């Protein structure tokens, strides 16, 4: 019942706020109320899930034996909590950003946001691959208007790359992978222990893993990562929520879900042996590109590509500790990256600066913003007291447990690279003299949002019980 409410609430909100087109404050209030309500609903389900319950909702069957079904399990609950919680924060931020920058089509923006969250909840709660695929594709479609929000040629081109890559990858690889799973396993339900155990082996198994890994294009494994930087044409709140939280998280969430519930942790490791190499390459290559990128959002985008592959790498190791690390990283990266994007948007709104080289001295003019940026950077690098440290700890432990020294080396190297492209920004902001005209912080709603998420990042380090409990019950 509550499960149905979780799905319907954002959709109803989208419809309602479309009607409030002419009354912006009412429209924003509807958004906020829906987000708060959604978070409350999702949170209320967490107790039951932690106790071992699996609330389910089965709607009709599309094909014989293939219903649209929702089953809550710990990983899905965590994703849903992140999505709904950060939705609320994003609305607060977006209000400041859209009004501060005089953006048009604000109703379309908030409505598509709501629908995107609905799709993300659908992905989070999916009980079988068909339902996951349904909402996964819906998410791509619903975020396209957000990516092409500005409506100009650049937006159109970015939208084409975004849509083209994501739909191509899911249609060419994910759909056949699903069909093959159905044909081999007879079911598409997510089952603890997997459904493909013993049904496929050797080269065919590796091929199936590849179909899934590249078919879930939202996880941005190279070479299918180009949609992420292309989507940076969108307004920053879109980048923040969707490309730090909803869309990319749906991608890596799906990968972890497939690894744990379709293949199972006891699956033949040889089929996964190639994946850490691809993920490792993505981590390092994306970090190198980030190092050389001057555009701040581009740097953050490639940082995201790199961080997502942490999750894929950890999942591919098939070790219980690394799975916990992967699940935790979904949460840790979300709060950390959203802080970074919020800060980037604040810098743009207040100072109209988009390049890293222009950020000198802004730390002293916008102390809150850059302090938050610093915390987000710490989380990316994986240093205490930020959330990224906790997830990295588990990923390293998992790599040691699996005796995968290459993974260990990649994690170490990328930590250094992360420091290399984040710390200089913080240094420049605080320790170099500023140029240009004087300005203050961004509008207060934006600053409040980014301070809150930075605080969350720190809080997740100190009070990691809930995410840890959820992640632990996976493995």
């Amino acid at each position, binding site marked *: 019942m509550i499960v149905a409410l979780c799905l319907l609430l954002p959709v109803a909100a989208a419809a309602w706020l479309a009607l409030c087109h002419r009354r912006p404050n009412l429209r924003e209030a509807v958004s906020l109320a829906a987000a708060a309500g959604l978070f409350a609903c999702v949170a209320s389900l967490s107790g039951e899930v932690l106790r071992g319950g699996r609330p389910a909702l089965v709607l009709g069957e599309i094909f*014989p034996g293939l219903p649209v079904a929702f089953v809550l399990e710990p990983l899905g609950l965590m994703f849903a909590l992140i999505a709904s919680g950060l939705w609320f924060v994003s609305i607060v931020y977006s209000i400041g950003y859209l009004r501060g920058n005089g953006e048009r089509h604000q109703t379309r923006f908030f409505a598509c946001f709501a629908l995107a969250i609905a799709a993300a909840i659908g992905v989070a709660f999916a009980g079988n691959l068909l339902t996951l695929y349904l909402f996964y594709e819906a998410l791509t479609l619903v975020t396209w208007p957000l990516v*092409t929000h500005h409506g100009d040629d650049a937006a159109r081109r970015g939208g084409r790359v975004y849509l083209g890559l994501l*739909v*191509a990858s899911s249609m060419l690889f994910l*759909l056949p992978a699903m069909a093959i799973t159905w044909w081999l396993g007879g079911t598409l339900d997510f089952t603890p222990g997997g459904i493909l155990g013993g049904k496929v082996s050797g080269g065919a198994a590796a091929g199936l893993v590849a179909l899934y890994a590249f078919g879930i294009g939202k996880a941005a494994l190279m070479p299918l990562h180009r949609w992420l930087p292309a989507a940076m044409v969108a307004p920053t709140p879109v980048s923040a929520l969707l490309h730090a939280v909803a869309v990319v998280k749906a991608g890596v969430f799906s990968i972890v879900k497939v690894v744990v519930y379709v293949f199972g942790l006891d699956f033949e490791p040889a089929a996964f042996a190639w994946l850490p190499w691809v993920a490792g390459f993505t981590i390092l290559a994306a970090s190198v590109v980030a190092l050389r990128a001057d555009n701040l959002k581009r740097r953050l985008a490639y940082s995201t590509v790199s961080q997502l592959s942490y999750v894929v790498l950890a999942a591919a190791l098939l070790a219980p500790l690394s799975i916990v690390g992967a699940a935790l990283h979904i949460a840790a990266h979300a709060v950390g990256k959203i802080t970074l994007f919020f800060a980037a948007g604040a810098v743009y709104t207040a100072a109209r600066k988009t390049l890293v080289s222009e950020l000198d001295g802004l730390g002293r003019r916008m102390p809150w913003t850059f302090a938050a940026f610093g915390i987000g950077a710490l989380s990316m690098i994986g240093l205490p007291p930020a959330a990224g440290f906790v997830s990295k700890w588990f990923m390293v432990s998992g790599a040691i447990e699996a005796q995968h020294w290459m993974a260990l080396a990649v994690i170490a190297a990328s930590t250094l690279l992360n420091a290399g492209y984040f710390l200089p920004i913080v240094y420049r902001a605080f320790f170099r003299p500023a140029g240009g005209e004087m300005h203050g912080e961004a509008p207060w709603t934006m600053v409040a949002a980014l301070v809150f998420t930075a605080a969350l990042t720190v809080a997740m380090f100190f009070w990691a019980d809930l995410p840890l409990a959820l992640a632990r019950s996976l493995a």
Partner: protein
Amino acid sequence: MLEHLPALQVVLPLVAAPLIVLARSTRFAWLATTVVSYACLVCAALLASRVADGGAISYALGNWPPPWGIEYRVDALSAFVLVAVSLTASFVAPYAQRSIAAEIEPDRQYLMYAMYCLCLAGLLGMAITGDAFNLFVFLEISSLASYVLIALGRRRQALFAAYQYMLLGTVGATFYVIGVGLLYLVTGTLNFADLAERLRMVQDLRPVLAALAFITVGMGLKFALFPLHQWLPNAYAFAPSMATAFLAATATKVSVYVLLRYYFTVFDPAALFERLPTREIFLLLSVAAMVVASLAAVYQRDVKRLFAWSSVAQVGYITLGIGLENQAGLTGSITHLLNHGVTKGAIFLLLGGVALRAGAGAVTMETLAGLGRRMPLTALGLVVAGLSLIGLPGTAGFVTKWYLIVGALERGAWWVVAAIAASSLIAVAYVWRVVEAAYLREAPAPAAARREAPAGMLAAGLAMAGLCVYFGFFTSINVEGAHAAAALLLRGAQ
């Protein structure tokens, strides 16, 4: 009354046509057409439910027993086709009022309705008859009516398009009748069930093989099997909107049905598929259609022609099931008869609304510019139907694709899976051209006022687009019906 349902199914539209011509009133014409279309839908639904409960229905016309008399035979497959055709008709008929009023000269409008009724009668007759030559008669009734429907288009290119279609279509029908003639010479009967029995004994004789070839090519011309598709893009592009919508959704489908009927019921499927390279030929041609026609669609400027090429590609999906020849594949094919019908029907109905507001001339990408602001509901309907064309989950098109992919996997035909995925991808390219034009381009200033299509037209188009989504989730009608039909066909293959 109820035992005469099979005859009523055809007689109602057949009688409506001359009545419309005699009455000469456009009002009466539209009313009669709409009533008849709904009546046909009720008939078809009743027949389908009786078949689902009690098995195939056999009806002897004029009480002359088969095989000497003409038999109407309704089984799971023909019931499915009857429902698909009459469902489309019941959406197009109310739509027609404003559409025909805008596109046809006033003193010819009632004639268009008459032709539409004749076409409907012909198509329904093709689906329901159990006699080979009777099928030819209905085939020609529907074809001649459709040539006229197309020729009534506003622009003069419609005339030449109709002429070309007429030439190729008549050649196709002639080939079909040559095939039937050869079969008759060998077996001495025209009744499908009787033919099936007698052909079992003489399957490998050369005249039978020749008959198979003639019938395949003949019907292939009718349903635009690649490479016999040349007439379709022009015919659909220049026909009046209502004609395009109706023909795109039904005419080719019923012709494929005829092929299915011959391949699985009349001819011996075991001989056909084991001893002849039928599977390979159909797989090759289907994949060629799916890929080449989709690519051709991407480069079209005229939007109606773009979707006409898309229809050629979608026919490839339908014939793919014949090439796969298994339960999943055939289920996919047969369900696509309905799924594509509602998808393409919705698209052409909505495009007709756009054409009406745009005035005379082709509907090009420029006409679609800014459609999202000018006609938001129409644009939304086009997007939904376009998603079904691509085959995204939650739409009818996905249902088809799923079954075809599973069918291909069961056959181990990996390249077919790749082809299905690739053609869907190309469909994204051409559908997204339309979406981008509608939402990301500004309308040219004079046309920028917001004005939706007339209510009747808009409602029909949106309802059909809604069906695309409905059949994507509630698959009891399209999937279960197709499943039963496929099982029936394959039983003959045992």
